[in-house]
């Protein structure tokens, strides 16, 4: 077995509140292998986004550890964190607020390159635009000239710029229309095939997560209920919460959905 790329041990994340701290992540453990996609699914308040932010160094780790290739990266200095930019990247939920509206696409893409002192610049920008399926003249335009799906492609291109080994994707498709969502998910898969990048893919939608993940972790109130192979978690959930989650997701087929609904109602009555 290959050594894990990313390893979370007993992770605790908390935020200061009036008169103390509230821990929103309470002892989370998992490993991420190179080239793997780990889906993280949960409802609002489950802490899925916080885990992603903790990995990115944007949320305070109060206990446990996060290590990248064996190196401890929780609670490191800003300067050290900057050196990780080439390894760990992110795609955020809202493609409207994650791109600075005042910058051209090219300068958005060059920014991480410049910060890392990479020289290739414009050539790399064209390469990236090509990789995410945007026209090469997109570089001179502003984010507001693109649709939601196209913006998310720009955000993905930015994440790819430094050729990272992990990308934390925080609900990257939930702000998109269904048809766009499908194509963006396909892009994620294609890029993984091409570059071998690993994803931590965070979503509230079990369907979306199952579509892209190798493994899935189900979160509930800051703890992992269940973690396992995608097929197993979605098809044969072991934890009752996963089952509830799964049965609650409606199917785009009236007959099958009726069946699922009855199943769910039966489960609810039994529980």
């Amino acid at each position, binding site marked *: 077995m290959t050594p894990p790329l990313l390893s979370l041990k007993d992770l605790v994340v908390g935020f200061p509140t009036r008169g103390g701290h509230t821990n929103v992540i309470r002892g989370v453990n998992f490993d991420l292998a190179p080239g793997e996609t780990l889906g993280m699914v949960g409802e609002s308040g489950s802490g899925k986004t916080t885990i992603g932010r903790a990995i990115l160094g944007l949320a305070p780790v109060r206990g446990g550890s996060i290590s990248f290739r064996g190196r401890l990266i929780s609670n490191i200095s800003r300067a050290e964190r900057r050196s990780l930019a080439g390894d760990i990247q992110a795609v955020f939920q809202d493609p*409207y607020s994650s791109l600075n509206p005042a910058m051209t696409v090219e300068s958005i893409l060059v920014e991480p390159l410049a910060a890392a002192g990479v020289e290739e610049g414009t050539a790399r920008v064209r390469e990236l635009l090509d990789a995410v399926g945007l026209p090469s003249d997109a570089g001179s335009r502003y984010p507001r000239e693109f649709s939601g799906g196209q913006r998310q492609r720009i*955000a993905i291109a930015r994440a790819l710029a430094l050729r990272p080994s992990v990308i934390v994707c925080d609900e990257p498709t939930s702000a998109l*229309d*269904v048809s766009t969502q*499908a194509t963006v998910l396909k892009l994620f898969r294609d890029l993984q095939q091409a570059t071998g990048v690993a994803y931590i893919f965070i979503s509230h939608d079990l*369907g979306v997560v199952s579509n892209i993940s190798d493994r899935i972790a189900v979160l509930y109130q800051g703890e992992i209920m269940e973690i396992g192979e995608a097929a197993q978690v979605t098809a044969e959930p072991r934890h009752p919460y996963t089952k*509830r989650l799964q049965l609650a997701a409606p199917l785009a087929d009236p007959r099958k959905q009726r069946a699922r609904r009855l199943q769910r109602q039966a489960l609810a009555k039994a529980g």
Partner: protein
Amino acid sequence: MAAHSATVAPVAPIRRESTLLQLLRNRQGLIWLSYLVLLVAVALLAPTLALYDVNVTDLAATNAKPFTPGHPLGGDGAGYDIYSRLIWGSRQTLIAVLIVVSVSAAIGATSGLVAGFYRGIFETAASFVSDAIMSLPGVVLLIALYAVTGPNLPAAMGVFGVIVAPTYYRLVRSIVITVRKELYIDAARVSGLSDLRIVGRHVLWAVRAPIIIHSSFIMAAGIGIESGVSFIGLGNPAAASWGTTLQRSFNGIYNNPWGVVWPSLLISITILAFVLLGNVLSDVLQSSSRNKVLSARQRRSVIARSAAVIGEVATAEPSKDSILSIRGLRIGYLTPDGEVREVVHGVDFDLRRGEIHGLVGESGSGKSQIAFATLGILPREALVLDGSVFLNGEDLMADPRKMRAARGRRIAYIPQEPMSNLDPSFTVGAQLIYGLCAVRPMSRPEAREILLALLQRVGIKDPERVMKMYPHEISGGMAQRVLICGAVASEPDIIVADEPTTALDVTVQAEVLDLLRELSEERGLAMILVTHNLGVVADLCHTVTVMKDGRFVENAGVEQIFDSPSDPYTVELLRSSRSVELMEIAS
């Protein structure tokens, strides 16, 4: 964004002009900018423009009336030429304004930037100082300062700059705090940018426009205070300024009443120029805060204009067996250029008693607009260009009184975002009881009884307690149940539900869908269900209409749509939707 399709904002046309160009394109902007440029030119060219040197007096011109030869605006009590003194005075005015604006912006904006970006102890300290300065009686302080430094305009203006610096501090700090939460700042962090670069590239950009706008108002205030300070005698009597000119003329007002007119006008117009320029700037640089409501006359003329373009459309009769019929509905919005952008292009729609009708489409398809139009609650800037909404054969669109009578009584509404749809200032019980009494004549205790039962029915365990709670104290799922309760309490025939489960977690969504189905069956409620989620449609609806770009592309029974969609767009939607669906579950 599918989740926020509720209001369709007109898409801003893509413009890449510089701010200056946009400013010049605006008539007001052009006028006031030219005025200020002129003013600067006057100050610079004072030696050429003034008729006399700054200290020249002419005893023969003491208290001269305006338009005296050689003294176009007259003379003051010492024989100064008022016109020349005002020209010379513009220099001091501009210098004063520059001092105020640079001191206050430098102190306020910098500290606001640091406080907002790093927060922590610096913010606490800076905010305390800012509050303290804001509590200072500014004018009194200037007066106290006068006692120490004497008439020293740069010092007074510098101190005034410090006094107004907190306005910059507050502005910049609050913007930076908001910007800091923007995802592009997180993205920049993740991209490995240093704080300095983040501030330089991202934060500064975000505060630039507000600072420029605010500076315009501060400059206006600066002129007011410079003249005011001179006017009450705290200025430098040795220098020519508008305020001292006003003071001199005012002292001699009985001898030459016209003397006060010129400095008063000049001061007022210049302040006006800065204020209006600030308004124009904020229109150009920020989304306008202008009231978008059209007057009845404007509305009529726009609709007439659009009707002329479309031509006469034959209005169909309402369908006989429908409880609700929509005919030829066209909805549009006025773009900033004064054009009408149509978002719903003449749709027909029928709803039978007890039917749950899904209205499906992606963002911007116009589905929510139809829902709002049915209830007559379109945003105030929306224009109903044409069409009818028939309730039992009566056209609600044609008669606002009938629409009001039907709304909330015959047709009820369930919104998308449960939390923002309850009035935060009233308890759940208060607004439910109040709302019910408003549409169904009954006493408050009666309404209370009905609502308690109904809350229980929609799945709220402890209705007595929930009634006493404020909206912010309950969860989203509970809030949606409260809203459903409010909608059905008036015993309507039709419910218009606009993405009622989109904001909810998937497990809550399932329960709410169950509730809606049960209520519809129990009460024979017809329902228009607006949604982007085909799974929700499959779960709840009897019939489905698919929308794209303001038009209906397909309309059929639910099984037909899912089994054999006829329109390629429907096919595409289904395919995308099913690609992310969970497979069958082995139980």
